[in-house]
């Protein structure tokens, strides 16, 4: 109980301190002229308190999870006693509350770093903005339910804010004739529009119904809200008109515009909000009994505490899930820093100076976000069974779009630093990156994606707060931009076509285009809920995105090659083309070679080949000439895309490599500026990796047994094979054999109790191979004298009986052994199986009572490709009652005995050493078995005679043929031996259906990722150094490197 109370205390403290910090720092930073040390002191101190309390919340939560306090709803929902410590960390952010906390935490860390080491001139605003974000985030985990609080706040806002606003205006005494006149005209227009809106019903017919509803139950806020919208719309319009018509350009008052726009939104909110109870945030420290007050168990026993939690989603029980979310959230969180610099720059009138200190942060942000996204992809590749790393799921897209925006912002920024043009564009893009992060948060957490995504969070009823979060920053950004737009220096107004900045601008435009397409396609559910339409999500997702994006990607690759040359090399008119000729020819040659080798030496097919064939048929069949022509053009446009993409990516690698070598070979000074070209090379390699691993991936689990194939319909997609245990089957390039489930073998180690109830307990242990298993046991049998579980006895028992108990791996997983043996078709028609190159993969599956079969793939990583296999289904086998047949056979050494499913060769007997008891004889029988499936096995039953001629026999169970064998007699005179067979006549079938894929050159993708990150690191180091070197001095453009200067005109 105390833990949760402490946590809630920290949560409240973090909210309050963020509020104080944000207000003081932002108010302080808006003041110009004399220093405002008082505000600053309060702001910094409260930020420190905020950071401390965030750490406090997290510490408390982790303590609750680690000590398995299942009386807490969050702990119960996301964790269980079985979880090892590192997965306890990931269950911390499985839920929404935890991941909000993660975000808050990173913001606190970033704010702390900026406070301690940041540029003093920017500290106030930047930390203030971060505090304001954390204020909103902290409200998400407050979990306060107050009856009618919403209504109360609304009424207060609606009544009080106009009063405050009017007083503010009065104090300013800003009045002139022009604005009065404009107010009257604009007011008239707005009044007419509003009256029309209010006096007509939804179909546009004159009616009083809306007006009536305003005055009915709780009507007063509605009417006030309406007046409100009216008044402040007029104000905003006037302000804008004033700004545009004013002869002298000057700053408008941000606060005035912000408050006016905000008040309009408050009015709209008041109009649309239902009056009732309000819930602010969702607390992670909620008690289970408060979450389910109506559950019968709590009515019967209010102190009930569940023994175990619900557990962590098995898909998240992967080490990538321990590091992917924090990385991604650090990426998300860090986008606020460049945003804060832009806002700070605008508010305080430092329109250009914000750039230098914010560049390293922008690079850091896109780097971390990129790493986070790729980690998520790698996790999906390793854990999920859709066979890839990217599924164009809305959740994935909504993390990709901010990254693309960030990259666009970075390039716009570079263009600005090169040419002193595009300042406004840069500012807008940096801000939009942050807004997109907020939009992405809204998409994934409001539950709006619903059916279109597999991994959104559950809706916690925070949609309102999430919309508010977006609205606040959108309005703020809008008002700051509107009030300062006129005074932002325009800088260079004209650029040359043949210049790096022009190429950079094109790249920015292309990046924005890609971002827009993805955003629109991902936002269909949002359009549906806003517009009331009923559009289903995009069909055939991967082809849709491929079709829309691939040419933009090709353009980017080529622009990057050309742009880098223009940026770093002195280029006259002739020189550019001749300089680019080398990478161009090299790329062309390399691409042709690679394509030729794909055509002649592999059986690879581009993944969309069947679709192009469909398109060709469609074109062939169309009767209308224009449509026919259009369809052929479309087809021809796409049919060589993979080849062109390969060429342009290679061009990107080579051109950037050329530039990089050039920079490295010059003076030492230019080494540090290679970050851009390194990052570009990495990205190009990623493109090549994408193209090969996804474009040329291949289902190899095709049944290639010709007799079986003829019976099948032609269009059936035979992408799965059924495997019976120990029966090898041929698929493309391999022979696969299901070798059975992986079972635990003694000796066991590290036996630990996971949880216990009054009559049962569960233990986990490691078997001889180091795999972790778990089993549930009755408690009574294993209790010692003092009523505790006797662990030694448990271990002894398990060691002895493990073969019979056959426990599952921990978390109810079963590992299925699938052996792959490479199969070569020799030229002379013979088939060769390369046993020495064979490998066994263990795809996992878990039959979850709630989620059904959950399959986890397994991979063989090879230099040129990954072999990827997952269980697609485990056919249900009706478990019959076992029936046995007994019979006896006599044999001499060297004989072969025939059973129903095997031939058994009697190789001989080996007398064993008799330890301890003299005058007794133990004989081990050596049997060699060939089953009807062609497998070779060995069986060693035992036979023992002691002094009293007592015979004891140990039989040997041969699982593969469901038969046990024992030697029952020895006739020394004739040299014959008696054997007894116990054969199951209805052996249990052990079958699985698997799918196997081959992903060529996926390693190039991972390699590219590393190089991309390396490039970012180099670039970031350069920019940090630059900041330290220049300190508070004015900005120096790229002219620092005269030998790379291009302005020769």
């Amino acid at each position: 109980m105390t833990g949760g109370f402490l946590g809630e205390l920290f949560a409240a403290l973090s909210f309050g301190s963020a509020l104080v910090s944000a207000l003081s720092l932002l108010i302080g930073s808006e003041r110009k002229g004399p220093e405002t040390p008082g505000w600053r002191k309060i702001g910094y101190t409260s930020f420190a308190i905020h950071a401390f309390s965030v750490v406090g919340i997290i510490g408390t939560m982790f303590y609750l999870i680690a000590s398995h306090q299942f009386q807490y709803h969050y702990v119960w929902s996301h964790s269980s006693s079985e979880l090892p410590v590192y997965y306890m960390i990931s269950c911390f952010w499985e839920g929404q509350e935890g991941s909000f906390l993660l975000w808050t935490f990173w913001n606190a860390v970033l704010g702390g770093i900026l406070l301690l080491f940041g540029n003093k001139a920017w500290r106030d605003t930047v930390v203030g903005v971060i505090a304001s974000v954390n204020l909103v985030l902290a409200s998400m985990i407050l979990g306060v339910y107050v009856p009618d609080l919403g209504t109360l706040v609304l009424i207060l806002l609606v009544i009080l804010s106009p009063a405050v606003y009017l007083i503010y205006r009065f104090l300013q005494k800003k009045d002139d004739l022009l604005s009065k006149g404009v107010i009257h005209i604009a007011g008239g227009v707005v009044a007419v529009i509003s009256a029309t809106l209010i006096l007509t019903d939804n179909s546009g017919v004159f009616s009083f119904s809306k007006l009536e509803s305003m005055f009915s139950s709780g009507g007063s806020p509605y009417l006030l809200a309406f007046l409100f919208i009216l008044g402040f719309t007029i104000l905003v319009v006037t302000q804008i008109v004033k700004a545009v018509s004013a002869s002298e350009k000057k700053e408008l008052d941000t606060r005035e515009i912000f408050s006016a726009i905000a008040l309009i939104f408050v009015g709209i909110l008041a109009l649309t909000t239902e009056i009732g109870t309000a819930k602010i945030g969702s607390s992670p420290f909620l008690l289970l009994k408060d979450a389910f007050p109506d559950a019968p168990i709590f009515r019967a026993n209010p102190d009930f505490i569940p023994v175990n939690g619900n557990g962590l989603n098995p898909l998240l029980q992967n080490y990538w899930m321990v590091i992917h979310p924090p990385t991604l959230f650090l990426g998300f969180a860090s986008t606020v820093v460049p945003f804060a610099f832009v806002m700070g720059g605008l508010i305080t009138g430092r329109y250009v100076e914000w750039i230098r200190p914010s560049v390293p942060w922008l690079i850091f942000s896109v780097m971390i976000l990129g790493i986070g996204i790729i980690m998520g992809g790698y996790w999906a590749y390793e854990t999920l069974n859709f066979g890839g790393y990217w599924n164009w799921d809305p959740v994935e897209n909504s993390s990709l779009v901010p990254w693309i925006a960030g990259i666009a912002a970075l390039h716009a920024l570079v263009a600005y630093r090169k040419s002193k043009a595009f300042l406004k564009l840069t500012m807008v893009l940096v801000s939009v990156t942050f807004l997109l992060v907020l939009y992405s948060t809204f998409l994934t957490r409001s539950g709006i994606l619903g059916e279109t995504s597999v991994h959104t969070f559950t809706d916690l009823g925070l949609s309102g707060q999430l919309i508010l979060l977006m609205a606040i920053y959108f309005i703020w950004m809008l008002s700051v931009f509107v009030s300062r737009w006129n005074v932002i220096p325009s800088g260079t107004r004209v650029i040359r076509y043949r210049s790096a900045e022009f190429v950079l601008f094109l790249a920015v435009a292309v990046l924005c285009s890609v971002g827009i397409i993805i955003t629109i396609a991902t936002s269909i559910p949002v359009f549906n809920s806003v517009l009331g339409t009923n559009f289903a999500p995009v069909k055939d997702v991967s082809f849709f995105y491929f079709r829309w994006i691939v040419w933009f990607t090709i353009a980017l690759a080529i622009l990057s090659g050309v742009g880098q040359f223009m940026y770093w090399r002195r280029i006259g008119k002739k020189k550019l083309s001749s300089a680019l000729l080398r990478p161009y020819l090299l790329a062309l040659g390399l691409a042709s070679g690679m394509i030729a080798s794909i055509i002649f030496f592999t059986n690879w097919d581009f993944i969309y080949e069947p679709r192009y064939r469909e398109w060709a048929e469609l074109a062939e069949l169309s009767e209308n000439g224009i449509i026919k022509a259009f369809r052929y053009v479309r087809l021809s446009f796409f049919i060589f895309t993979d080849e062109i993409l390969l060429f342009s990516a290679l061009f990107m690698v080579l051109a950037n490599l050329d530039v990089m070598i050039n920079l490295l070979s010059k003076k030492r000074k230019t080494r540090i500026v290679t970050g851009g070209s390194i990052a570009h090379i990495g990205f190009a390699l990623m493109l090549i990796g994408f193209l090969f691993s996804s474009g040329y991936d291949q289902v190899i689990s095709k049944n290639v047994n010709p007799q079986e194939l003829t019976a099948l319909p032609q269009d059936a997609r035979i992408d799965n094979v059924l495997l019976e245990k120990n029966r090898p089957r041929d698929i493309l390039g391999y022979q696969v054999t299901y070798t059975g489930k992986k079972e635990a073998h003694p000796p066991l180690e590290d036996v630990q109790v996971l949880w216990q109830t009054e009559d049962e307990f569960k233990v986990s242990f490691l078997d001889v191979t180091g795999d972790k298993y778990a089993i549930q046991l009755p408690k009574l049998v294993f209790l010692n004298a003092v009523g505790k579980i006797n662990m030694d006895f448990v271990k002894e028992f398990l060691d002895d009986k493990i073969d019979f108990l056959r426990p599952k791996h921990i978390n109810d997983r079963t590992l299925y052994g699938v052996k792959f043996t490479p199969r070569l078709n020799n030229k002379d028609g013979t088939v060769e199986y390369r046993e020495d190159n064979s490998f066994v993969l263990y795809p996992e599956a878990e039959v979850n009572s709630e989620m059904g079969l959950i399959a986890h793939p397994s991979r063989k990583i090879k230099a040129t490709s990954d072999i990827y296999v997952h269980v697609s289904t485990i056919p249900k086998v009706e478990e019959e009652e076992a029936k046995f047949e007994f019979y006896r056979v006599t044999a001499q050494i060297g004989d072969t005995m025939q059973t129903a499913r095997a031939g058994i060769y009697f190789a001989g007997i080996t007398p064993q050493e008799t330890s301890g008891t003299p005058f007794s004889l133990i004989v081990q029988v050596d049997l060699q078995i060939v089953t009807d499936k062609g497998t070779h096995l060995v069986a060693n039953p035992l036979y023992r005679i002691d002094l009293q001629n007592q015979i004891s026999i140990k039989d040997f169970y041969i699982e593969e043929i469901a038969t046990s064998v024992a030697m029952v007699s020895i006739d020394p005179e004739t040299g014959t031996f008696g054997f007894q067979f116990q054969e199951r006549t209805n052996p249990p079938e052990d079958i699985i259906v698997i799918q196997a894929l081959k992903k060529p050159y996926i390693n190039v993708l991972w390699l590219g990722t590393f190089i991309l990150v390396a490039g970012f690191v180099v670039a970031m180091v350069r920019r940090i150094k630059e900041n330290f070197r220049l300190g508070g001095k004015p900005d120096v453009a790229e002219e620092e490197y005269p030998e790379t200067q291009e302005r020769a005109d």
Partner: protein
Amino acid sequence: MKTVNIAKLIGIALIAMLGLVFLSFSGVLGSASKYTTFTEAKKSGGSVHVVGQWVRRNQAHYDIDNDIFSFYMQDTSNVVSMVQYHDPQPINFETADKIVIEGKYLGEVFDAERILMKCPSKYNKDEFTIEEAKSS
């Protein structure tokens, strides 16, 4: 020296972008089918999304040799149709309380290209049963 005014450049880019927004909207909405019913799907013959429930009393069947999974589904207008799918029974199929199929009619059988499952997941916390709390 050929030059371009930045304002003009950005203007052109914005117009192009607007065109792209329009295009991709029409592309998205054009390729996006609407949620519909079996009756309409049969009438239109095109590729559609249908939402419904698996009719549990008619068992689902997976034909291993031909890799065809077939079952009966009842749509939101309570029309029942046979559905086939060229892959094994999807994971979560049996526990799904709502399914969305994407495909078109081939004769009397709805040929699904994709099946989406809407599951009352254990990991959604909107239900609480004591049984779950007691054993793992």
